[in-house]
C-alpha cells in the first residue's frame, strides 16, 4: 500500500502552495492582452487555411499525391479544431476577449458531440471532480476499469479491444458518453430527459456526416470515392490522436485517484493538490504541444482550466519548480512512453486484482492531521 505523494504536507503547507499557484494565476490574468489575442487568431487562421486547402486539394483525390496531401492537411485541421481551438475555447479560455465569435457560449466544434453537452460533462463534472472515484465519470469513461478499486466484472475482459474500437470512433464515443448512456441503462436518467438530448446529438452527427461523407465527396465529381475515403481517414486520424492524448492526461502510472469523502470541506489548496496529483503531462516539441491543444500541459490545464492555452508552456517551469519544492511528483513523459503505460494498465485491469501496482494511494489519515501540523516544514520552506 502506497502513501499519497502529498501525505507529507501539512495543512498550512497545502494552503501556502495554493497561494503560490493563485499568484501565478493572478499574474497571467493581469497580463492577458494583445499578444494572446494574436495567438488565437493566428491558430484560427492556420486551421481554416489548412481545412480549406485540404478540401480543395481533395477535389482531385483520385490522384494519389493529392489524396495524401489533402488527407494530411484535413487531419491536422480537424485535430487543431478539436484540441487547440474547440476544447480550449469551450473552456472559456478566450472569453475575456469579448469576441462573440471566439466565445465559450457561441462556439460549435467539428465533432459529433454538441458543444453544449460536452461543456457540461467536461468543464463541470470532470474538472470539478477530477479523479474522484465514483464522481469523475472520465475515470474510465464508465466503460473501462481504470482503477483496481472498481470491482472487476467479466465484461472488463474485453476492455483492451474496446479501447481499440473507442480510439477509432472516439468522437462518437464521447457523444454517447455525454448522453450518459450508462445512466439511461441503469434507469438513473429517464428516457424523457434523454430523448431531446439524443435528438440534438443525432442532428449534429447528421450534419457532420452530410458534410464529410456526402456533400464534399459529391462536389469532387469523379473523385467521389477517394474523397470520401480521405474524409473518413481524416476523421479516424483525429479520433485516434485525440484519444491517445486524452487518455494520457489522467491514466498513466503515478496519477492518483481519490475517494469521494475528500470533497467534504476541500480547501482551494487541497483542490490544487488533487489536480496536480491526478494529471500527467506530455513532453515534446512546440508542434507537439500545439497538436495536443496544449493538453500536453495537462497539469497546468487542470490547475487553471480557463487560462489561455498558450500560457501553459510559459508557466509550466514554475509549476514544476513548486512541485519539486514541496516534494510533489510532476508526472511528465513522452507520448509513446505515457501511452504505453496507459495500455499496460488497461490490459492489466481487464483481469481481477491489480492492487499491487495500481492500487490507490492512501491519503493522510484525518486523525493525524493536527498532530503533524507545523512540524514538518521542508528545509527550503523554512529557510
Amino acid at each position, binding site marked *: 500500500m502506497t502513501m499519497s505523494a502529498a501525505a507529507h504536507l501539512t495543512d498550512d503547507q497545502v494552503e501556502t502552495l495554493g497561494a503560490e499557484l493563485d499568484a501565478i494565476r493572478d499574474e497571467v490574468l493581469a497580463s492577458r492582452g494583445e499578444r494572446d489575442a494574436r495567438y488565437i487568431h493566428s491558430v484560427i487562421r492556420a486551421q481554416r487555411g489548412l481545412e480549406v486547402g485540404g478540401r480543395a486539394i481533395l477535389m482531385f483525390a483520385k490522384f494519389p499525391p493529392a489524396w495524401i496531401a489533402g488527407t494530411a492537411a484535413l487531419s491536422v485541421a480537424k485535430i487543431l479544431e478539436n484540441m487547440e481551438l474547440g476544447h480550449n475555447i469551450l473552456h472559456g479560455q478566450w472569453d475575456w*476577449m469579448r469576441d462573440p465569435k471566439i466565445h465559450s457560449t457561441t462556439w460549435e466544434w467539428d465533432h459529433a458531440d454538441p458543444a453544449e453537452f460536452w461543456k457540461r460533462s467536461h*468543464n463541470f463534472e470532470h474538472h470539478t471532480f477530477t479523479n474522484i472515484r465514483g464522481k469523475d465519470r472520465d475515470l474510465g469513461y464508465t466503460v473501462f476499469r481504470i482503477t483496481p478499486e472498481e470491482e472487476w466484472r467479466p465484461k472488463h475482459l474485453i476492455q483492451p479491444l474496446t479501447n481499440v474500437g473507442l480510439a477509432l470512433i472516439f468522437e462518437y464515443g464521447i457523444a454517447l458518453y455525454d448522453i450518459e448512456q450508462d445512466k439511461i441503462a441503469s434507469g438513473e436518467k429517464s428516457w424523457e430527459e434523454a430523448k431531446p438530448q439524443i435528438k440534438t446529438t443525432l442532428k449534429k452527427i447528421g450534419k457532420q456526416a452530410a458534410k464529410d461523407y456526402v*456533400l464534399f465527396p459529391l462536389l469532387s465529381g469523379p473523385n467521389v470515392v477517394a474523397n470520401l475515403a480521405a474524409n473518413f481517414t481524416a476523421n479516424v486520424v483525429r479520433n485516434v490522436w485525440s484519444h491517445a492524448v486524452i487518455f494520457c492526461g489522467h491514466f498513466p502510472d503515478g496519477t492518483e485517484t481519490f475517494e469521494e469523502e475528500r470533497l467534504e470541506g476541500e480547501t482551494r489548496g487541497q483542490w490544487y493538490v488533487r489536480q496536480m496529483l491526478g494529471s500527467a503531462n506530455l513532453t515534446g516539441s512546440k508542434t507537439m504541444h500545439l497538436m495536443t491543444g496544449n493538453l500536453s500541459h495537462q497539469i497546468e490545464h487542470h490547475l487553471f482550466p480557463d487560462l489561455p492555452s498558450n500560457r501553459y508552456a510559459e508557466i509550466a517551469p514554475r509549476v514544476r519548480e513548486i512541485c519539486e519544492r514541496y516534494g510533489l511528483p510532476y508526472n511528465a513523459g513522452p507520448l509513446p512512453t505515457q501511452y504505453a503505460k496507459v495500455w499496460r494498465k488497461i490490459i492489466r485491469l481487464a483481469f481481477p486484482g491489480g492492487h499491487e501496482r495500481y492500487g490507490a494511494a492512501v491519503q493522510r489519515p484525518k486523525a493525524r492531521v493536527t498532530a503533524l501540523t507545523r512540524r514538518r516544514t521542508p528545509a527550503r520552506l523554512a529557510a
Partner: protein
Amino acid sequence: MSMATGFRGNLWQAGRHARSLARTLAAPLLPDDVLGGLHPLWSRRAPQARVVRVVRETADTTTLFLRPGLAYAAHLPGQYAGIGLRIDGVWHWRTYSITSRPGASLLQVTVTAVPGGLVSGKLAHDTPVGSLVGIAAPEGEFTAPTGKPLFVTAGSGITPVMAMLRSHDLSDAVLVHVERTPEDVVFGHELRALPGVRVIEWHTSARGRPTPEMLDELVPDRPAREVLACGPAGLLDALTEAWPDVRVERFQPKRADHTAGTGGTVTLSASGIVADVAPETPILTAGEAAGALMPSGCRMGICHTCVGKLTAGAVRDMQTGELHDAADQPGRPVRTCVSAPTGDCTINL
C-alpha cells in the same frame, strides 16, 4: 403573371437550397464565418468598417470616415451606431452619433476624447487610416423633426443634430449651440455657413450657461417649434423640466454607482425573481436563496455553466476585481458564481 411568380418562386427556392448547402458545407462554422475569414468587411454577423479618412476637428475631437462592410444598414439622421475597438486583445464597444447624412458613401462618426476614456481617446487620437473597427447596426429614436425645429445642443451634443442639418430637408430651422469658446465649436465653419439654418452660438466663457428662460428670450417662437436637445445631463434636465415636449438625446445613461460598495437588488429577468444580494455575495448564491433555478456548475469560476447575460447595472468579478457594466457592454455574459452586484442590476436568467 403566373409564369413570373413561378419563376420568382423557383429562384427563391434555389436561393434557399444554395444557402442551406452553404450552411452544411461550412458546418460547424457559418458561411458568414468563412466570408469574414476571407475579408473582414464581408461578414454580416460581425460587421466591421475600415477607417479611410481622419479629420481633426478640434484639439480633442476627430471625425473618422468609415467604409462599412457589405452588411451595413442605412441610418436615419440623428441615429447612433456602436463602434468596437480591440484594445489589448479585448473588444470594447461605445456608441457614437453618426454625423454623415444618409446616403453618403462614407459613414462619419465624430469622437471627442473624454479625459481618461479608453475608447474615445484611442478613437480620437490613435486610430489611423486603414484601421478596422467593429460597427453595429444604427439605432436610436432621436431622429429628424417633422415640424419647424429648434435644436439646442452643447459640446459634442451637436453630433446627432449634424446628420439632420446635413440632410438638407429642414426648413426654417434654428440651432442654439452652446460651447466654451468659438474655437471649441466642432464643425464651426460648416455650421456658420449652413444655408436655411439660423445658427446662434452661445459661448459659456463669455456668458455662462444658458437657462431655458434665456433661450426663450433668444428664440421667442420656441413654443411653436419642435425642440430637439442634446448635451450634458444638467442642460437636458433643465430643458425637460421647463419644456415638457422637448425631445432629448442623452450620451450618459444612468450608470451603476461604482463607489457605493457592493450588494444590491438583482432582477433575474427570465424567471422574474428579484433577489436582494448582500455585499460580496455571489449572484448565484443569492439567486438560489431567492428560489431561482440558476444554472450552476463548479461554483468557483471555472466551468462557465452559470453564465448569464448582464442587461442592466454592474457587477464585480470577485476573482479578478474587474467591474462589468451593462452600460459599457449590454448583454455581457457574467459568471454568477463569482460575480457580486454593485448596485441594482438585471441578469437574463
